[in-house]
């Protein structure tokens, strides 16, 4: 029997982590409220806060004495992160306020990738232990348990910041403007408020709050290069549950999530990673705009410059035929390594194409498409390992498993739209990832599963190359056809105008759901083909970076074209294969590619080529 006092201690621990979550999430929610940008880089702000505080304490504490040095370093670190956020606003966000939400999400993720490579380059890859907080290094005794004094500081920080924000938003002109902009950005602009200054200020505030959270965390947790990704998903969950743009909502949600985790770990230690995402999914089903959020108007989610879908012209058809011929003949002149590389291009082409089927055509931005790729990969691997399936039935199990997952998750997903939809796809992907990661007996956990090889007849690389070409090619051809078919048009109709769909008798949600499931099924097939070419699978297949890879492929190729994702997959995968081994900064390179694409070539490679060709023809 556990001592009841232990529950009190656990509750206090929950309060401390609630404070931490709230400090991060409140900046995220304020930034979203005003700029309508979901800032992935918020986790990077948090991480930078911890690193800045580490460096500052190391320099200032010897000079000014421990107490003054430490308590000066914390706010200075926060301001430093605020300035970093301002830099990001001026250089990047300012150019994309009017862009599609997909570009905004990706652009901030580009910053995440760049910071992820910068941090180890500057501070090294090891964990850095900061000093303890002077004046709060010992314990207090609560109900017979020793409780760290510093935890009490953290517990107080959350409500203090909440109170400070309340004063700022209700007692100052600037705060009033922020609230007004959160409710109606257009109107505040129309009243002659200088939006640029307002947005820069909001980024400073949000960045500084995240930096403060990171700096305050330093005495508890060593600064490390994984802090950003570990925290950002949870911060999203808190923001979404609270209602995006609502600070009080974020506070409530942080309390709920932190306490659920504090006590959940006692009851079901194996589902702690999944728990926040499950709660988020449940909340969104009951209240699609979060606990205290306000509904967004029903609008379409088309991309600027969307054009009617034209059938392939004569030249494009010939080009396609030539491409297929080249792909068929390719194994004659290539070694095993290159053959395998091209085979993987088929896999990623199908993965990216299936993503674009729901995103480009359907307007549903998925930030968790890796879930279905991974479900396919795991479906096949589990079938082989636990059910003794041969390759052939396992390759059938892959799309079926992914399709079932997509049907289940999709049922919830299509009830939302825009960024909420994107966040929910992310949450589901994290659920899938956490399950693969934590259910060690079934999935092998972090190590994954190995030894998943093709049947004897297909074990030769060239044979498997053709098998992949046939399977992925057939699936792409099928989705291609479906894009031109009434079903694809129905998805596009839903993207353009949900209101009009409703008025001509289209059950939009149902079609979006089926589209989501179809895309998931195809991604699952890609995952299945992938696992037999690699021989193993690990949770990376379901992770956020894999989802982002698919988004980058689509974006690189061009979201408004059908050929785009295929081109993008080929370009991205070949780049990765040839550049990754040469550099320690692959992620930063991808991040830069993303940022450049979003700012300079939002139409992607295929869109760029199309415009060039169209320009020549019209001359």
């Amino acid at each position: 029997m556990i001592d009841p006092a232990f529950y009190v201690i656990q509750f206090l621990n929950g309060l401390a982590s609630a404070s931490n979550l709230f400090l991060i999430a409140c900046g995220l929610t304020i930034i979203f409220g005003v700029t309508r940008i979901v800032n992935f880089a918020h986790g990077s702000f948090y991480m930078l806060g911890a690193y800045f505080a580490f460096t500052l304490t190391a320099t200032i504490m010897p000079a000014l004495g421990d107490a003054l040095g430490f308590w000066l370093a914390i706010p200075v670190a926060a301001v430093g992160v605020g300035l970093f956020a301002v830099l990001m606003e001026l250089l990047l966000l300012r150019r994309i306020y009017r862009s599609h939400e997909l570009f905004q999400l990706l652009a901030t993720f580009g910053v995440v990738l760049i910071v992820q490579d910068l941090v180890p380059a500057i501070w090294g890859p090891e964990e850095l232990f900061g000093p303890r907080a002077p004046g709060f290094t010992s314990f207090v005794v609560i109900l017979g348990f020793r409780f760290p004094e510093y935890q009490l500081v953290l517990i107080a920080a959350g409500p203090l910041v909440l109170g400070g924000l309340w004063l700022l938003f209700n007692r100052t002109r600037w705060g009033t403007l922020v609230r007004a902009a959160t409710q109606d950005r257009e109107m505040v602009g129309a009243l002659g408020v200088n939006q640029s200054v307002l947005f820069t200020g909001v980024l400073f505030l949000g960045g500084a709050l995240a930096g403060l959270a990171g700096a305050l965390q330093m005495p508890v947790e060593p600064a490390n290069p994984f802090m950003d990704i570990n925290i950002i998903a949870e911060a999203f969950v808190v923001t979404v549950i609270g209602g995006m743009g609502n600070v009080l909502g974020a506070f409530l949600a942080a309390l709920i999530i932190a306490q659920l985790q504090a006590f959940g770990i006692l009851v079901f230690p194996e589902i702690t990673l999944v728990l926040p995402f499950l709660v988020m999914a449940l909340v969104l089903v009951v209240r699609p705009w979060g606990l205290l959020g306000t509904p967004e108007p029903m609008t379409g989610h088309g991309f600027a410059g969307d054009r009617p879908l034209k059938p392939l012209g004569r030249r494009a058809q010939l080009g396609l035929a030539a491409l297929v011929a080249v792909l068929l003949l390719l194994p004659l002149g290539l070694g095993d390594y290159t053959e395998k590389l091209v085979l993987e291009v088929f896999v990623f082409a199908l993965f990216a194409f299936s993503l674009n089927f729901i995103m480009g055509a359907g307007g549903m931005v998925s930030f968790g498409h890796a879930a279905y790729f991974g479900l396919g990969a795991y479906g096949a691997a589990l079938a082989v390992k636990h059910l003794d399936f041969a390759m052939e039935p396992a390759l059938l199990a892959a799309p079926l498993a992914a399709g079932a997952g997509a049907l289940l998750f999709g049922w919830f997903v299509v009830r939302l739209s825009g960024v909420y939809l994107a966040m929910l796809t992310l949450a589901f992907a994290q659920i899938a990832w956490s399950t693969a990661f934590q259910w060690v007996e079934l999935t092998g956990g972090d190590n994954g599963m190995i030894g998943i090889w093709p049947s004897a007849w297909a074990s030769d690389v060239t044979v498997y190359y053709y098998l992949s070409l046939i399977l992925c090619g057939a699936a792409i051809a099928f989705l291609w056809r479906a894009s031109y078919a009434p079903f694809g048009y129905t998805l596009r109709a839903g993207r353009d105008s949900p209101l009009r769909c409703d008025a001509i008798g289209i059950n939009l949600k149902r079609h979006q759901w089926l589209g989501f499931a179809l895309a998931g099924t195809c991604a699952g097939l890609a995952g299945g083909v992938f696992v037999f070419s690699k021989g193993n699978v690990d949770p990376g297949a379901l992770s956020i970076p894999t989802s982002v890879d698919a988004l980058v492929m689509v974006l690189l190729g061009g979201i408004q074209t059908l050929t785009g994702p295929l081109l993008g997959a080929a370009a991205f995968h070949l780049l990765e294969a040839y550049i990754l081994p040469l550099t320690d900064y692959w992620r930063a390179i991808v991040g830069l590619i993303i940022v450049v694409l979003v700012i300079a070539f939002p139409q992607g490679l295929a869109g760029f080529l199309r415009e060039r060709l169209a320009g020549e023809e019209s001359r």
Partner: protein
Amino acid sequence: MTVLDVSGLRKAFGGLTAVDEVSFGVEAGQLFAIIGPNGAGKTTCFNMVGGQLRPDRGSVRLAGRDITGEAPRRIWRLGVGRTFQVAATFGSMTVAENVQMAFLSHHGRLRALLPSARRLYREQALAVLERVGMAGQAERQCGLLAYGDIKRVELAIALAHQPKLLLMDEPTAGMAPRERIELMALTAGIVRESGISVLFTEHDMDVVFAHADRLLVLDRGRQVATGTPAEVRDDAEVQRIYLGGAGAEAAARQIEARAGEQLPGERAEGEAR
């Protein structure tokens, strides 16, 4: 034949009764207008007929069939087309494809995965576009059209389904005066030749008096008057509501003037035929 029969319709939002005991009927081939000052309950009334709102009390019958509280999708299936205050079309599709979507939905072909959507119901779509004068622009992208033309496409989408009843929420909102007259003349012409009924709300009195066969006047949720344009025009209470009790004389002058203005509208309608 009575196409739409609304009786005892009531809707309250919290303590505010937006629509109270409203009853009216729309006959086949009739243009029926709901008018009234801002906040009179026009749009609430309209949305209860279209299925966007569920009434607290009362019934809506379409050609004798009870459709009270049905979903908009279902109501569309039963033969009700709709246009919106701010036109809603599929901006990334061509004009023809917009109308083809309505045919695909009408024929239950939305889930087909293999045939080419561009080829399905194309002739039918072009025929409908011909009726609204948009056949010449069938291959243009809908999102790039002038607003008046987008409204015509919307009308074509609604007509594709051969509706018994067309719901038009402020059909001429946001249009230039000349375009307004043309669009309403076109609508009236189509309605009269095909026997469709139209229920519309409208702020523009020129449009109302030029085209409506019958009017319903609402004020603060209450049904003030129902009748022909002439009857409504001479109704003492309508005059009082629009201009206040003290301004009865001014009201008479205003409405006389409006009665005069309707003539150009009627001429336009004649030309459309």
